[in-house]
């Protein structure tokens, strides 16, 4: 054994507070999640695309001198050029401007439908799951019945009774759209309501409102957010689909769906009229999907230390 200086064999002072110190900086759950999310290249691509789409939706229609509704029959069906970057449609309207106006409408409808689904779904599923018993059974049966109604029939019915337009479209989509979210939230709440921290809150005297909003829902945010990011593309697609069927927004407003609907018959000769709206629908749905997948992976508790 090598020579060790004797003075090292004197007692060291023990700081008991040191023993309790946490050396690493505070890392909240969300910081942890965003760190993992940022490592997912595909998800980051999705985020970039989404940001670009939103920016273009805001600034796109102002970028050239055309507006979305002025017709100019002499200029009809012109191919993309340096003047009309995406070409013109059969009424001579600038496709570029119309595309980005359409983006505003499609994104708005998608987002609005998702948010309404979120609010109704979280409240319905949360209350149903927490109350349990007969309340739960009743609420879920109502949801089941609504779910069983043929969706398209319902939408068409609404479109016929009410005035066609953005409001009606959102109503049609959210009448049954919340059910998925409700089921997911209910599932989470059923799991969480027997957790000891919920029991602790009950013994402290927390009322139902507090338990729902401070304990159950925050701990369900993961699946809620993932469901929401996957609901938005669904809503956008549905809007496009309904518009395509002629049940969407009215002229002269444009959404990607109406533009695709108008562009399809002319596809052989004037392909750009279908190409741009259709491509953007795809890109948008793709972006939300990869973001949603990225979030789901980032929130996976197994990957946490």
């Amino acid at each position, binding site marked *: *054994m090598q020579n*060790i200086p*004797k*003075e*090292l*064999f*004197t*007692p*060291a002072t*023990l700081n*008991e507070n*040191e*023993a*309790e110190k946490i*050396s*690493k900086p505070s890392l909240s759950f969300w910081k942890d999640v965003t760190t*993992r999310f940022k490592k997912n290249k595909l998800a980051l691509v999705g985020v970039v695309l989404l940001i670009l789409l939103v920016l273009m939706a805001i600034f796109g229609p102002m970028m050239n001198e055309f507006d979305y509704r002025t017709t100019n029959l002499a200029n009809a069906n012109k191919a993309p050029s340096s003047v009309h970057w995406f070409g013109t449609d059969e009424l001579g309207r600038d496709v570029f401007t119309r595309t980005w106006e359409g983006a505003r409408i499609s994104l708005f409808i998608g987002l609005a439908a998702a948010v309404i689904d979120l609010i109704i779904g979280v409240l319905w599923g949360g209350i149903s799951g927490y109350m349990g018993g007969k309340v739960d059974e009743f609420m879920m049966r109502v949801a089941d019945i609504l779910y069983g109604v043929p969706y398209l029939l319902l939408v068409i019915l609404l479109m016929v009774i009410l005035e066609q337009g953005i409001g009606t479209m959102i109503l049609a989509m959210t009448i049954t759209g919340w059910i998925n979210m409700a089921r997911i939230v209910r599932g989470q709440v059923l799991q969480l309501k027997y957790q000891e921290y919920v029991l602790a809150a009950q013994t402290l005297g927390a009322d139902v409102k507090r338990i729902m909003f401070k304990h159950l829902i925050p701990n369900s945010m993961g699946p809620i957010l993932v469901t929401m990011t996957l609901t938005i593309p669904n809503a956008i697609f549905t809007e496009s689909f309904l518009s395509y069927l002629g049940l969407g927004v009215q002229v002269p407003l444009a959404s990607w769906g109406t533009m695709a609907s108008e562009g399809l018959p002319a596809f052989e000769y004037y392909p750009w009229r279908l190409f741009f709206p259709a491509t953007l629908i795809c890109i948008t749905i793709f972006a939300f999907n990869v973001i949603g997948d990225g979030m789901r992976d980032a929130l996976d508790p197994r*990957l946490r*230390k």
Partner: protein
Amino acid sequence: MEKLLEVKDLEVSFQTYAGEVKAVRGVNFDLYKGETLAIVGESGSGKSVTSQTIMKLIPMPPGKITNGQILFDGEDLVPKTDKEMEKIRGKDIGMIFQDPMTSLNPTMKVGMQIMEGLIKHQNMSKGNAKDRAIELLRLVGIPSPEKRVNQYPHEFSGGMRQRAMIAIALASSPKLLIADEPTTALDVTIQAQILELMKELQKKLETAIIFITHDLGVVANVADRVAVMYAGKIIETGTVDEIFYNPKHPYTWGLLSSMPSLDSDEKTELMAIPGSPPDLTNPPQGDAFAPRNHYAMKIDFEMEPPMFKVSDTHYAATWLLHPDAPKVDPPEAVKRRMKNFSSEKLRKG
């Protein structure tokens, strides 16, 4: 006594997204034929990782054996491939885990799970394997084994499932049985039955057992020799009497004094070890136990202590055993134990 297993300088690390965690930082021990070695430690001590590494059950990546040898019957297991290990697992080395519900396949009949190993390792026919399975179930004390052999795990109680696990592990009469906290999840009375069963079977089959646990009562019950682990290293090792009646490492002192004994009265405060085990992504310089050690000296924060010899069978890695170290008074609870030891030695000696 013949040596069955020699673990030399074993080091195992895991790559996590927080960095490299050195779970096992240089573990050395021997195991002799037919004896029971208890590896005691708390969470994060590295005891489970050590035992799973012996069976090469650690997924690599993210795990990695960064150093050392595992000599089983003279052969080093470290360089062996998974295929080579498959011939050894279930045949020469058996393993029992803590939670019988997740270690038994819920969709396979219990009998079949016993027979699997027999058919594979001993080339038995299905018929012979089934007979042997019934015999094994009887051996581990499961009533009506002819019926039970065709049942599924969920039809067994917790204690019975653990017995079934023992049957599976011992089916091919392995030379070594690794039991990783086999009774931690069981009630006290069931635990007692399982421990009795294991000792009985060990006598019959002459199997060596590595028994991993954090319960010192269980250690006193089953072990011939004990290895105490802390932060990825063995800090003290000796016979069961040496460890319980003449411990030398402050961590062992801490463990023994933090438990109430049946003759302690309410007035004496339990000696708690302050703080928590260290973060192994950044193992400390010097003795890992130093920040929580009432008896720490300056040198504990600078250099890791080597193993000091106390007797031919008893070693402890603490600077307190260095000739230059001052004589210290172990805690009351430990002093009482040491009194028993000396009188024991006189009685035996």
